[in-house]
């Protein structure tokens, strides 16, 4: 970004709530059913139907609101947001307008070691719409479009931030923290790829040092953290360029084109809707007493920031490790579970951040789906500590465990991977290697310290990695110094 400009960013995040049934009827919220099988007269908005609010939705929204440091409204209500679109069964969305369930919260994000407080304007509840499948590129250029209403009526919360974010990095950090909080509280499964967590950004730029907001654009269709960051970077640069060239930024909605890496105009403000909000007459207001709020507050789990602090203080982990481990609740829990059976936190952290995440990513599995369970990893690490296997073998065993689901001991036994700590056996190999590699021996004797590394490698190769590396080193040096 140009030196003279600063960006002003606010995010609107939609999260699908993890309830079993929809917001106003008892249909399942399960993802991926045959089109239009998870529907009933109510979520299809058939003539004569009425909504009945799912109490769980209110609890989940309260939980999210409390986790985001919001005040929970003792009185809130639903409103109708009227607009026409074929994926919207009633042509209005039941949402909350002037009296949302939660308001005035904040999140403390950390970017480059700096902590910054981002205001949360509001959290409100609403229903999701259905999904359109076009025969062509867009609804207007298609010869036909199909609608799947399975998603219609799935409960959402919308979390609106204050325009406190100043860079794409901050926006990303905010979004990542928000996601992990929603995961921790278990109100949403936050699967961005399934659309259960979606984000729109309002962005404008202004000369640095000024306090007035520039004209903003709204960016939609960013379905990953990377996309969010790239889209904002592009859009900020685009707006600066417009201003630099003496132009004016137009208030409009833009779409992020992931493939081309650009934002494109969707519709301008002139076509913008007058939603004609008014109180939903088919639902009674939501009255929440202090007791209910407190019971929800008590049910809140340890949140990522508190957990990160605990990992650093109780286990002495570096900030980076604690951040990575607590970025996902499942990973943090995995860590805690391994620590029940093992003593060295840093070793565990290394294995989780390194081997485990690598294999999970490569096989597209979530932590919950990991074939290696915490206790299994602890067993492996204990074998390593006892010297039964070498570090190198341990990685091999780990991969084997991941692929087969077998225990470390079983694999070590079956494959004969037990470390050779018999001095006599190793000494024989060492002698052989020295005899076969006169050049390296020569180099070492001439003071080339690294030559010993090669010789160690040769011994390991001969023993198929099973030789105890410390012993190999010791014996090699003894032999060479003769």
């Amino acid at each position, binding site marked *: 970004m140009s030196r003279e400009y600063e960006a002003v960013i606010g995010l609107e995040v939609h999260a699908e709530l993890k309830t079993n049934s929809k917001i106003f009827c008892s249909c399942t919220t399960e993802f991926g059913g045959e089109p239009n099988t998870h529907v009933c*007269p109510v979520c299809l908005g058939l003539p*004569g139907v009425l909504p*009945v609010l799912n109490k769980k939705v209110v609890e989940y929204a309260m939980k999210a609101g409390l986790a985001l440091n919001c005040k929970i409204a003792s009185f809130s209500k639903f409103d109708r947001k*009227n607009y*026409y679109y074929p994926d919207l069964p009633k*042509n*209005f969305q039941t949402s909350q307008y002037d009296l949302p369930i939660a308001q005035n919260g904040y999140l403390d994000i950390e970017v480059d070691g700096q902590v910054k407080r981002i205001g949360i304007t509001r959290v409100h509840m609403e229903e999701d719409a259905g999904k359109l499948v076009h025969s062509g590129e867009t609804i207007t250029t298609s010869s036909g479009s199909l609608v799947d209403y399975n998603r219609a009526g799935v409960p959402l919360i919308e979390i609106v931030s204050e325009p406190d974010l100043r860079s794409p990095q901050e926006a990303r950090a905010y979004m990542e923290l928000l996601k992990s909080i929603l995961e921790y509280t278990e109100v949403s499964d936050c699967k961005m790829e399934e659309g259960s967590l979606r984000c729109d950004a309002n962005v404008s730029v202004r000369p640095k040092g000024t306090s007035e907001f520039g004209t903003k654009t709204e960016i939609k269709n960013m379905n990953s953290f990377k996309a969010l960051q790239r889209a904002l970077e592009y859009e900020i640069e685009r707006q600066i360029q417009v201003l630099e060239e003496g132009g004016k930024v137009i208030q409009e909605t833009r779409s992020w084109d992931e493939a081309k890496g650009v934002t494109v105009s969707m519709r301008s403000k002139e076509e913008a809707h007058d939603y004609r909000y008014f109180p939903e*007459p*088919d639902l009674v207001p939501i009255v929440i007493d202090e007791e209910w709020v407190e019971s929800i507050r008590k049910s809140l789990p340890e949140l990522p920031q508190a957990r990160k602090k605990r990992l650093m203080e109780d286990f002495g982990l570096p900030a980076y490790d604690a951040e990575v481990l607590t970025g996902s609740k499942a990973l943090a829990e995995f860590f805690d579970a391994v620590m029940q059976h093992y003593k060295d936190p840093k070793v565990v952290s290394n294995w989780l951040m390194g081997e485990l995440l690598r294999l999970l990513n490569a096989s597209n599995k979530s932590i919950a789906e990991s074939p290696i369970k915490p206790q299994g990893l602890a067993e492996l690490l204990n074998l390593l500590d006892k010297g039964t296997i070498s570090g190198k073998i341990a990685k091999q065993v780990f991969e084997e465990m991941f692929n087969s689901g077998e225990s470390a001991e079983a694999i070590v036994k079956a494959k004969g991977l037990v470390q050779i700590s018999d001095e006599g056996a190793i000494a024989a190999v060492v002698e052989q290697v020295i005899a076969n590699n006169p050049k390296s021996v020569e180099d070492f004797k001439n003071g080339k310290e690294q030559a010993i590394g090669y010789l160690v490698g040769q011994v390991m190769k001969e023993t198929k990695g099973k030789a105890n590396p410390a012993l190999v080193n010791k014996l090699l040096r003894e032999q060479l110094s003769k």
Partner: protein
Amino acid sequence: MELYELTAHELREKLIKKEISSVELTNVFYSRIEAVENHIKSYVTFTKERALKKARQIDAMLARGEQTHPLAGIPMALKDNLCTQGVRTTCSSKMLENYIPPYDATVVERLDAAGAVTLGKLNMDEFAMGSSTENSRFFPTCNPWDLERVPGGSSGGPSAAVAAGEAVYSLGSDTGGSIRQPASLCGVVGLKPTYGLVSRYGLVAFASSLDQIGPFTRDVTDCALVLQAIAGHDPMDSTSADLPVPNYQEALIPDVKGLKIGVPKEYFAAGLDPEVEQLVKQAIKKYEELGAIIEETSMPHTEYALPAYYVIAPAECSSNLARYDGVRYGYRDKDAEDIVSMFMKTRDEGFGPEVKRRIMLGTYALSSGYYDAYYLKALKVRTLIKQDFDRAFTKYDVLLTPTTTSVAFKFGEKTDDPLAMYQNDICTVTINLAGVPAISIPCGFSRGLPVGLQLIAKPFGETTLFRAAYAFESVTDYHRQRPQVGVK
């Protein structure tokens, strides 16, 4: 009296005594329909096969000596905005001409469980908007007392069918007077229950905060019977009250001694037909004779009710009717080139002029820049009107007013002047705005046409209404008069 002229409780006696079977009774009604329907035109759809099947079931139960509901085996009919599974529900609109709901309205379910025999679905003003049934997209319904006159609206079909002996009772819906006004014009009993007493689930919405389902019957006893069958909490309707339903039959005592009746002077203002006024005043005298305490009172915000109503009802209707866009069901324009013109053409062709007028009024009233001036203001007026009623009910058990300002008018008389048509609701809309219950009962005839009397009670005060109405009925015989259909 002919069988088709009797009340449900009278016919119940005959069924129990096996003087007649439900199948025979059902056939009596279809014969009567055959005889007069071409004059009245109150039905949109007949469900004869189902009706006879149900009648046979009830007959079998009666033959086995099983306990049956007081309404079991009695032929009735439903306004065509009540959803019936497998039977088209049109709202008398081209938009839903061939729409078949996959579910039953809660009231339909309840009546079905009670053993009601449904003869068919009844004509109405399109989507319940109107006061004459001239807005039906199919055909107008005639007043059985004078075929050149309207039966009232929007439940013209339900009121005319009961008055003409084409059904023993019927269900209608009342958003601003749509049960009471046609009941008054057709000389039958019509009740708009307290908002929240009867589930609205399955009633095709016009204005959600005002709509309420209620019965048309030939006398107050039947009215209490039908209400008993349909009232009570429904988990499918969050606005339905979770309160015990009283035994309405116990309220049917011909005694109003000491009952305090308030007569709000604003309902007797200019525009009230002198003969109607006279008949209502006679009724007041009757109550005095029966020992009720009558007092004139004032409801100062009455004059603002009509404008407030004609902002709130259209506002809600503009949103409720948005779903009729041709995408999922109902009428669709087939020639449109793209989605937006499909929406527009579908709605242009699918809705009649009155529906469009109200959608536009409501859209305007809710649009940004006008919301505060119209919608919000109307809500404030609504609160003031409610307060008028709250105050009145600290002093009175019942309020008494005319139901309509005049007897049934002629076809076409008011169709060119929407505002004149809206004036027709002047005595009834306040009740919907306040959410209180009100009943219209026959109180005399003016030039051979029925005149109705409106009794109003506090929320969930239906028992008081029944008591007051029943006492009047016990000493009069207006409710026993039957029109000579086809004979002028």
